[in-house]
């Protein structure tokens, strides 16, 4: 069964309060060299062997459900 990864990120123009909270924490934690943090979601899922075009199916799933196109972009990767 192919395992597929979907990564969802807020569009660059949308405020990311979690990313910002992390950024604010960095200097204090001693990670001064890290910047421009964005937080999104990461999904891993299995697709039945019977499905001929796993990537397309998952892309559709991402577009319909896993991401909200109003604010988010996504990438789909078949890992194996």
């Amino acid at each position: 069964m192919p395992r597929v990864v979907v990564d969802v990120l807020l569009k660059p123009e949308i405020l990311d309060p979690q990313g910002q909270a992390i950024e604010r924490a960095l200097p204090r934690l001693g990670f001064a060299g890290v910047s421009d943090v964005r937080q999104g979601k990461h999904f891993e899922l299995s697709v039945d062997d019977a499905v001929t075009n796993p990537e397309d199916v998952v892309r559709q799933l991402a577009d319909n459900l896993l991401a909200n196109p109003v604010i988010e972009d996504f990438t789909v990767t078949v890992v194996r």
Partner: protein
Amino acid sequence: MQRIGIVTFPGSLDDHDCVRAVIRAGGEAVALWHGDSDLQNVDAIILPGGFSYGDALRCGSIARFAPLMTDVIDAAKQGMPILGICNGFQILCESHLLPGVLTRNAHLHYRTKDQALRFENTKTVWTANFVDQPYAVIPTKHGEGRYVADAAVLDDLEATGRVIARYINGNPNGSMRDIAGVCNEAGNVVGLMPHPEHAIDTLTGPSTDGLAFFTSILSATAGVAL
């Protein structure tokens, strides 16, 4: 008596409170089940607050696909009055019945607050009774209520008077342009983050200001029911 349908999804929480508010306002509350495909001849529909599907993924994103939502979306397009409160508002946005999206509060916490509001559109079927008293205190309680849309959408909402209410005396979640609620172009579909059903009695809430939502819809649909 007008029939106001209140939808229960798995994880809905404030459905009972909406029932109580409808009855208090003098209407008949009709329980609608997410898995059915029957709007039971109601005159208007409320999508209540709560954590449908545990807020998994994004709030409202899974409830949007409930069988009953197909009927709700069709009815909305034909002009049926729909009110989405909190999670209901999130479901309406996810269903694209309302523009924009509700995201994680800017401060990252769930927050309960008696929130001051200003009603800016008192022409909708849900807000008409705010016309003489546009200021209200109604509880907010959510972790993901920050209204987000792109600038063009926000400009359009403002230009067409579709921002129905704004937060005043402090924005509880970082919502863009202090938006607490919006409506669709036709004005029949309204989404609101605060919970009017928790402001119908000073014994249990901060005010009775929320009752106006329920009396508004009953007056608006009175003609229809006759």
